[in-house]
């Protein structure tokens, strides 16, 4: 595979042809914020947190969806980008009901961490307070729509790694919801194997193990790298 050279935040980096800006930057120690991207899963460009500026392009581009090119000049952390990212996080927090202090993932949540990292110390928008369901029909896991940010990591891991394709997104706009099978309760899903992969990759407290209380849930994504390495290299190594 041929190698590409590009400039990211003033630093010359090399990347493989076909690699995304996001992953090339991460490999070089430049950590672009993200919520929907997760290494080992396909990319969908849903959250827009990874937007970057590219010389010669008027529009901002999601770095997880944009491939590197020779001599590309990319900026990942300008004041304008930081302002956009702060607003995206505020929109996510205002859209549903995020009450960190009583959330299962308090202290280990990617959205909560990102808010802190970006300096979001309050939400300028008016919270929507939608009335949303919690699905506790599954034996081992729960789904709390109040905390879901529609990143679709659950949809992708279940389809691409577990091969069950239990999850999908139904509805439009503010009525969008993740659903199991054709919208029946998770506990009645015929396709779910109860593997728990969706719970582990969910960045927020939306998917959790039953029995976990406030700030009690911790997520472990080690399995994903293990499986992806096994697929790509035909070797069972971590």
């Amino acid at each position, binding site marked *: 595979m041929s190698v590409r050279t590009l400039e990211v935040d003033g630093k010359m980096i090399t990347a493989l042809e076909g690699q995304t800006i996001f992953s090339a930057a991460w490999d070089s120690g430049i950590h672009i914020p993200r919520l929907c991207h997760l290494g080992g899963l396909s990319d969908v460009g849903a959250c827009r947190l990874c937007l970057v500026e590219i010389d010669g392009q008027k529009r901002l581009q999601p770095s997880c969806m944009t491939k590197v090119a020779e001599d590309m000049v990319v900026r990942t952390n300008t004041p304008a980008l930081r302002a956009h990212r702060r607003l995206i996080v505020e929109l996510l927090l205002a859209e549903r009901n995020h*009450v*960190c*202090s009583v959330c299962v993932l308090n202290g280990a949540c990617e959205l*909560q*961490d990102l*808010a802190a990292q970006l300096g979001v*110390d*309050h*939400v300028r928008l008016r919270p929507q*307070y939608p009335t949303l369901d919690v699905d506790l029909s599954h034996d081992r896991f729960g789904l709390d729509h109040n905390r879901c940010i529609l990143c679709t990591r659950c949809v992708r891991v279940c389809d691409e790694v577990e091969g069950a394709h239990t999850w999908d997104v139904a509805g439009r706009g503010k009525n969008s919801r993740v659903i199991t099978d054709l919208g029946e309760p998770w506990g009645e899903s015929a396709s779910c194997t109860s593997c728990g992969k969706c719970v582990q990759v969910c960045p927020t407290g939306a998917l959790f193990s039953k029995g976990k209380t406030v700030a009690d849930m911790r997520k472990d994504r080690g399995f994903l790298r293990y499986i992806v390495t096994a697929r790509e290299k035909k070797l069972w190594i971590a």
Partner: protein
Amino acid sequence: MPAKPKLATVWLGGCSGCHMSFLDLDERLIELASLADVCYSPIADVKHFPEGIDITLVEGAVANTDHLRDIRTVRARTKILVAFGDCAVTGNVTALRNLYHLDDVLHRAYNELSITGTIPSLEGIVPRLLPRVLRVQDVVSVDHFLPGCPPSAEAIFEFVAALLNGETPSREGRRFGA
């Protein structure tokens, strides 16, 4: 700011946890007392919110008619108003009832679950709940936000010390929840 700035803290719709965290300053309370005059606080015996306060920390969301009246007075008499803790900043647990109709919440809490079985209503004594819990910023302008449930004693000290020095407190390490 005058030689010794005037500091106040108020408690609206919150659990008092932010004030407990404030008390966790322990011996640094003495240091704070040398930096500022604490003129009004739920932990001090002062009846009325004084005029000419430099910095006020507001714990809690605006949940009833008393809070609404008080926060307006506090704002009018304060130079730098700080939303102190998640209830003041986001509504937090206090605003959980916003997911339901107020009548249903009162019915559940008092008719169904309380020992007396009646909703307390003494005009002029028991303040009426607002239909929706409001964040402090929904009612008055807020100059600074110190999130956390509660903010740690360290965060409070650094924040207040920076304000007393006339600096803008850094946003470093501030977060919602724990």
